[in-house]
């Protein structure tokens, strides 16, 4: 009891900080046209490489400075957040649905279902993920939906492995046997008895996966394999920033910090949610 309380107090700030940051980025992304101070695509060579607001030579309205084409960095980050979040949610949810379902089936039913699914996972995991992603996008073509598809296709195994192991542990528990004795069908037991017990892990993985999807999308943008180069993406901005690191460090540093904070927040938020969701840990 005491231990649970300590855990909860320890998790409080983590949940709020991570959740707060994610909410901020999410709201900014949703209302990007309203909150972005400038047009993210507007070039103005008179305004190129303006420094952030606290340095000499900054212009009002360009808080985080501009890039080498004179585009407002903050506005580009805000609009880049749109793509990052669309990819994060869509790819992570798709990977989660496929991976958790297969993992639940493999872990709960065992036997040949488990053998087949586990074999597929082994084969899948033999590919290095980033190369796999680049290959997939090269095949599927660049564009938002193929980036989402590529991430889901690669990362469902992460869900599958963890949920399989958890479901397997749960399937051995006496309460599952008790439900069998009472006459519940297998699928009913899987959904009603086992699923609630693996749900906290699914939630944590889902949040973690959103962070991973943000990174993968950034990597794909960085190597110019994501969506059209016109729309600002965090990875794309980082790639541009790298080229002008000596003239305008901020074009590299701000998107990197945004990316890292977002990814960390997703994983921390997931962990915190997991303990909130879990009746035993709560």
């Amino acid at each position, binding site marked *: 009891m005491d231990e649970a309380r300590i855990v909860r107090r320890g998790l409080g700030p983590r949940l709020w900080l991570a959740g707060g940051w994610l909410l901020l980025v999410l709201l900014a992304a949703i209302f990007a046209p309203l909150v972005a101070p400038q047009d993210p695509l507007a070039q103005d060579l008179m305004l190129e490489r303006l420094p952030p607001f606290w340095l000499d030579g900054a212009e009002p309205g360009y808080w985080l400075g501009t890039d080498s084409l004179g585009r407002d960095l903050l506005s580009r980050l805000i609009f880049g957040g749109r793509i990052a979040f669309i990819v994060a949610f869509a790819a992570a949810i798709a990977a989660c649905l496929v991976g958790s379902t297969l993992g639940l089936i493999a872990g709960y039913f*065992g*036997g040949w279902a488990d053998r087949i699914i586990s074999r597929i996972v082994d084969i899948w995991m033999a590919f290095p993920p980033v190369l796999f992603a680049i290959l997939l996008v090269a095949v599927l073509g660049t564009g938002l939906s193929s980036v989402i598809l590529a991430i889901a296709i690669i990362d469902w195994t992460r869900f599958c492995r963890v949920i399989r192991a958890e479901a397997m542990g749960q399937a051995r*528990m*006496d*309460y599952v*046997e*008790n439900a*069998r*004795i*009472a*006459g*519940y*069908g297998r699928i009913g037991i899987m959904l009603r*008895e086992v699923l*609630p*017990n693996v*749900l906290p892990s699914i939630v944590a993985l889902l949040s973690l996966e959103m962070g991973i999807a943000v990174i993968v999308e950034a990597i794909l943008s960085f190597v110019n394999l994501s969506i059209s180069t016109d729309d600002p993406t965090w990875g794309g901005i980082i790639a541009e920033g790298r080229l002008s690191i000596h003239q305008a460090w901020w074009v590299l540093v701000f998107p990197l910090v945004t990316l890292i904070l977002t990814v960390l927040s997703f994983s921390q938020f997931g962990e915190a949610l997991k303990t909130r969701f*879990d*009746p*035993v840990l709560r």
Partner: protein
Amino acid sequence: MSACLDITNLSAVLANGQRVLRSVSLSLQPGEVRALVGESGAGKTMIGKAVLGVLPSSVRIVEGNMSLEGEDLGRLQPRARRTLIGARTALIPQDPLTALNPSRRIGPQMTDRLVRILGWNGDKADKRVRQLLDEVQIRDPDRVLKSYPHELSGGMRQRVLIAAAFAAEPRLIVADEPTTALDVTVQKQILRLIADLQREHGTAILFVTHDLGVVAKISQKVSVLYAGKVVEEADTARLFEAPLHPYTRALMAATPRYTDPFASLKPVDETVLAGLAAEIAAADQTWRHLHG
């Protein structure tokens, strides 16, 4: 009147061919409490699981029949068998923690089952559950029904499971060492509760235990199991007065008495074990002869 549970010549093997049940026969009359004793690994739990239709996939039944109230389980389609077992039997398990779903509150766990098995509506099931919680002397049903399993003590959890087992009025309950995982002080109360509810409801109980003290308190008849074979079956009183099988006698000598708790426990005698081994070997020989 047909027996409540009738097991005849039940044999089961593991994947490697090793026999875990050796032509077990066992018959319970309605309302009878039958103790199933034997040391750990004798196959007591296996018999219970066989009756309830939840044998592990690594264990295969190779011969024998089981019937519940005259219905031959082997003749039924799997779905009909599940329904029958669900309606007529229940389990009081050994470990009250893992037998409850950790992520669901006690209330829905208990009522769901009544709704499912008896087709009752939620209100009626809720009333029944409260009545049973009262019978197992839970005085604050509201709190218990709202709790998650880990929020209750081991004794409370076992009370909940006893209430759940009796709630749907099964004809047969398998109680698999229901007090082993509990504190000694709680064990007695739980045993008394099971005995009281059994008398009240007239439910037959197959009471699995390795404790002869418990046998004496609760059962009318005893089956003594060794290495998956029933070596002796007798009325409880008769068994304690005049155990026939050497193994039963050895088991009794190995049980501590309240009158002399510090007397060292005698291990089962070597000659008894040798005799048992020969008996098992002979039985297996006959079995192999009959089944190729």
